[in-house]
């Protein structure tokens, strides 16, 4: 009688990101970041897949924001910051010295933790990027770009009758969606979000999360979050950082049911000291 025991890997609960077949949008190899003498990121290798939401999780100070900022060279503005290694978007070297950083940031947009609308009208907030990049030919054209972005950010119905009012007069959740509209108005390929819901209540958070899920049809999204539940709800892939190292990156369902690394397990179950 055959009583051999075979351990099989559980199929992913979401059946989501199977590595094969999903193109890589951003490829990082051996990325090291220093702030002066501080070694903030250590040899990070990761493939960020197109049209997926990748969540970065990990304890405070582990380097999530640092890595996110490498992806559109926001670290360039930090005097002490040195980035080494290879970062490519669709094969293009992000740190190519001849690359136009303004163009890069149009391709890789960013949404911050605190909603930061400009003290301008709702319309002008969204039109800001398209104006800088000259992405329209006529007023009607710009109107259409603004409407499309606001619809894309699931905000249009709430603001279509008051586009001339100040963006700062919106609720926190609406402001965050306005910032997302502003980011998508320039037609980016990748949207980076650093704790985009930490200032929002659960309902506003649910709206933004629904939006993130819809946006991934057209964009590649990387989100930093301190909420394990949020990472579990919105992402297909999850990357766990710890003390500047990328400890593990896998299907979100695998990370939350059976992570490989003890440190990941400790962190997501709330055992981490």
């Amino acid at each position, binding site marked *: 009688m055959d*009583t051999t025991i075979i*351990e099989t890997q559980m199929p992913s609960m979401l059946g989501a990101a199977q590595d094969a077949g999903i193109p890589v949008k951003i490829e990082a190899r051996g990325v090291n970041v220093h702030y002066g003498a501080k070694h903030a990121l250590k040899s990070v290798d990761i493939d960020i897949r197109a049209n997926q939401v990748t969540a970065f999780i990990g304890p405070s100070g582990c380097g999530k924001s640092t890595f996110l900022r490498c992806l559109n060279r926001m670290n360039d503005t930090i005097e002490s910051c040195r980035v080494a290694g290879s970062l490519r978007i669709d094969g293009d070297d992000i740190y190519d010295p001849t690359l136009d950083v303004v163009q890069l940031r149009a391709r890789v947009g960013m949404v911050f933790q605190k909603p930061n609308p400009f003290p301008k009208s709702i319309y002008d907030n969204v039109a800001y990027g398209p104006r800088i990049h000259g992405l329209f030919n006529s007023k009607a054209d710009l109107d259409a770009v603004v409407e499309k972005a606001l619809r894309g950010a699931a905000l249009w119905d709430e603001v279509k009758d008051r586009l001339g009012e100040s963006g700062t007069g919106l609720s926190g959740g609406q402001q965050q969606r306005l910032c997302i509209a502003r980011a998508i108005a320039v037609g980016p390929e990748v949207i980076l979000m650093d704790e985009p819901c930490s200032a929002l209540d659960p309902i506003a958070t649910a709206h933004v999360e629904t939006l993130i899920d819809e946006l991934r049809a057209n964009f590649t999204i990387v989100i930093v979050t301190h909420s394990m539940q949020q990472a579990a709800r919105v992402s297909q892939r999850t990357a766990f950082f710890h003390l500047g190292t990328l400890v593990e990156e896998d299907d979100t369902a695998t990370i939350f049911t059976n992570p490989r690394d003890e*440190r990941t397990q400790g962190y997501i179950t709330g055992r981490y000291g």
Partner: protein
Amino acid sequence: MGNDHIVRSYDEELNRLTGLLARMGGLVEAELAGAIEAVSSRDAELATRTVRSDARVDDLEREIGEQVVRVMALRQPVASDLRLVLGSLRIAGDLERSADYAKNVAKRAVALAQLPVLRPVHAIPRMGTVVREMLKDVLDAFAARDVAKAVAVWNRDEELDEMHGSLFRELVTYMMEDPRNITGSTHLLFIAKNIERIGDHATNIAETIHYLVKGVPLAGERPKGDGTSFSTVGAEGAQ
């Protein structure tokens, strides 16, 4: 890295869950022991008491279900915690079914005590010993998160199935010898089947332990030492 949660009350809630399971396991062991003993010693009074004790097991299963819902709602467990919580719910279900089978054995013990002694009854305490050891070992394996011990229980199910198969054939022959044996033998058939089913639940628990400790299912062909579903006893068996 410690094994404790940063939030201590979370550990307390998980400990309460495993504590309830330990108590439930103990009650099921006692119920099973009572049922087997009632059959072998023809003790109708013990059998009746055993049947009544089943209600407590049902209560505990409900309590465990409520505790699971509570932990899920308040803590949103993930990874090993999630597997523990869901595994506990499944184990409670297997224990409740096991207790139901034990209760059924006890009920039949009441009926058997009124009938003349049947020769094949000797096999029941032997099967009972095996299934009680399986249940005890699998509960110990859960308490210690001991996968090797759980796998040993899983493998032992074959032995129980074989005992069931041979008792089945013996009883069929016995009934053919003398139709007056039919009533008692039928009770014994069901008792043996109930014990065999408890063994299956013990192996389910072993599989759950494997999953909750390792995060991957225990897969492969479960040993089957029983062919009763397909058994026939030829006319020569009646000679």
